[in-house]
């Protein structure tokens, strides 16, 4: 016997709206992320987490204080806080002797842990260490992934998916072309991911498209992949399921030719040759008997003929 959950009806309209906002939707909200520390942290880690928080800012929620949580061992506390704050991404920082400057980036599906990857932060340079203008708040960054390992290694392939999920803000249908200002680059080489962040300046090139020039703005760090806890392919695929309403219907049988005129292809069923009216000949005429046997109930004859 299963247990019925959420039997109580929301008593106020506000409460109802709140629950609807958090329920499953066809077009989902932007994924929110939680930032929190474990039992201990270091100076580098704190600066790193602060910068990552800055990269995510309007869609992020930093939790205060220390948390006695080990996500790789027991993920229940994360699942509960994800439910509480309605966030499906988390950035967890901890610093131990065994794993110094440790960051866990993870995501949840339906308030259940989907993927988690642990990284060691090395060669960290914060946003403040670079001079010059930074990116504006809430800007959607361009994400660049370089290195063949991101495609060949299944673990790194999933980590790439996780990083895209973590750093892309939301997919867009239209884009202000001048608003492209920020690039985050991930380069994979020998189990190490170099994360670099640049500011784009578009310059005149003489052709239609502008020329891109980059300027490093930070944060920059080298991430070494430590432990990972990735979802099985089945679970991952079921989490990726697209709702029927969002699937694009393929338009069949309609084409446009080079001149822009619309061409349609019409399908017709096979013609019944027996019923085809051919040339009338006396010899092929039905006899009276045949006609009587095939006789159908005829429609009433128009009366005006008789009058005339």
């Amino acid at each position, binding site marked *: 016997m299963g247990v019925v959950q959420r039997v109580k009806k929301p008593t106020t309209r506000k409460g109802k709206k709140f629950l609807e906002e958090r329920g499953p939707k066809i077009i989902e909200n932007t994924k929110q992320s939680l930032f929190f520390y474990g039992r201990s942290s270091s100076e580098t880690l704190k600066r790193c987490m602060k910068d990552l928080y800055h990269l995510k800012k309007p869609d992020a929620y930093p939790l205060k204080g220390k948390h006695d949580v080990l996500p790789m061992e027991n993920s229940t506390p994360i699942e509960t806080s994800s439910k509480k704050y309605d966030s499906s991404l988390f950035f967890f920082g901890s610093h131990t002797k065994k794993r110094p400057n440790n960051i866990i980036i993870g995501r949840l599906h339906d308030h259940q842990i989907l993927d988690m990857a642990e990284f060691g932060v090395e060669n960290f340079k914060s946003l403040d260490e670079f001079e010059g203008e930074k990116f504006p708040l809430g800007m959607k960054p361009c994400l660049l992934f370089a290195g063949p390992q991101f495609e060949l290694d299944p673990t790194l392939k999933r980590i790439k998916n996780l990083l895209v999920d973590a750093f892309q803000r939301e997919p867009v249908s239209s884009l202000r072309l001048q608003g492209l200002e920020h690039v985050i680059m991930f380069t994979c080489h020998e189990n190490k991911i170099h994360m670099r962040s640049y500011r784009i300046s578009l310059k*005149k090139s003489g052709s239609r498209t502008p020329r891109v020039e980059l300027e490093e703005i930070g944060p920059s760090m080298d991430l070494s992949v430590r432990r990972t806890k990735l979802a099985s392919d089945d679970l991952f695929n079921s989490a990726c399921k697209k709702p029927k309403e969002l699937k694009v219907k393929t338009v069949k049988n309609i084409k446009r030719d080079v001149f822009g005129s619309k061409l349609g292809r019409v399908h017709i069923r096979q013609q019944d040759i027996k019923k085809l009216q051919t040339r009338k000949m006396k010899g092929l005429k039905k006899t009276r008997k045949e006609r009587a046997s095939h006789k159908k109930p005829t429609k009433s004859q128009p009366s005006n003929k008789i009058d005339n």
Partner: protein
Amino acid sequence: MNAENVIRFEETRDPAKSTSVAKLVDVEIDPATLLVSDTNELDLKAYRNNADKYLESLARDDAQLLINALWEYPTERYEDCIVAKLPPPKYVIPREKPVPQPKPLTRWEEFAKRKGIEPNKKKSNLTWDDVLKKWVPRFGYKKSAAEKEKDWLIEIPQSEDPYVDMFEKKAQVKSEKVSKNEFQRLRNIAKAKNVKVPSMGLPPTPKLNSRQLNSAAKIAHLSTASLGKFQPHSSKEKLLSRGNIVPLEKKRKLPVPSLEEERKRNLNIANSILNKKPKLDVDKVVNRQIHSEEVEASEQKQSKKRKGRGGGKKRRSKGHHPANKEGKKPKGGGGKRLFGGKGKQQSGRKRR
């Protein structure tokens, strides 16, 4: 409209560089997520030489490719901005929550669908009230306020008992309707979640907690004919009194009467005792009189019969007391008295 016509860019620092980038393997670009996946091998020589510089040049090339791709898309003007229309994203990212499922049909909706009953058309929110002469909402606190205003008086129908509180009855009917609706709602939820619910009574609790188990044991302890007086139990066990399980009626404490009233009440009690008169039960007296008359008459009859026969057959009585002949019941009092005084004979009528 072309983007180049409107967007003006500064001069490049290095005019020799162009926008074209050559790559051995074509990079994958997803414009909606602004994602570039470059699977080309890294130039290890340049990487080892100066990693940061190499990474920057690599990033520049990939970003250039992305910009080149984005500039291909059709543009639109939107509030002083040039906006490119992008196709839907290709790169698949897991959803935050599962795909919403359609709401399961309720019992009524299922029935209506089967029978082809069309759902009611949308009703207007306001209805005209003829009595109040104003528009009243169909439901909500304003509706209930209007109802209260309207029903200050309820006519009692002829078929009804005139002493019934019609307001109370109305409230009861309403509350019954509400609870029926709630029951149906819960049943629909249970059906949707595939939970088996018994058609009658309450479902058994799957697992009792320690408090519930304790109280169940205590109730079982008390559930004997002697209310658990002779049941064995450990000394540590805290036993319940009967009142803990079956709530006893609480005695209402009356307010303390005033001095005058108390005196009056006590006087009344004293008077009632002093002025006690034996009650005359007319029925009882009449019955007794009739009985005694009948007894007398039958005795006379018996004596006449005996005289008339003059020593006929002697009837044998089988263990019958001679007093039984008169039809009198045997009286108790032949046995030993348990609680009577020592040899003290009780006399007079039995007091209860």
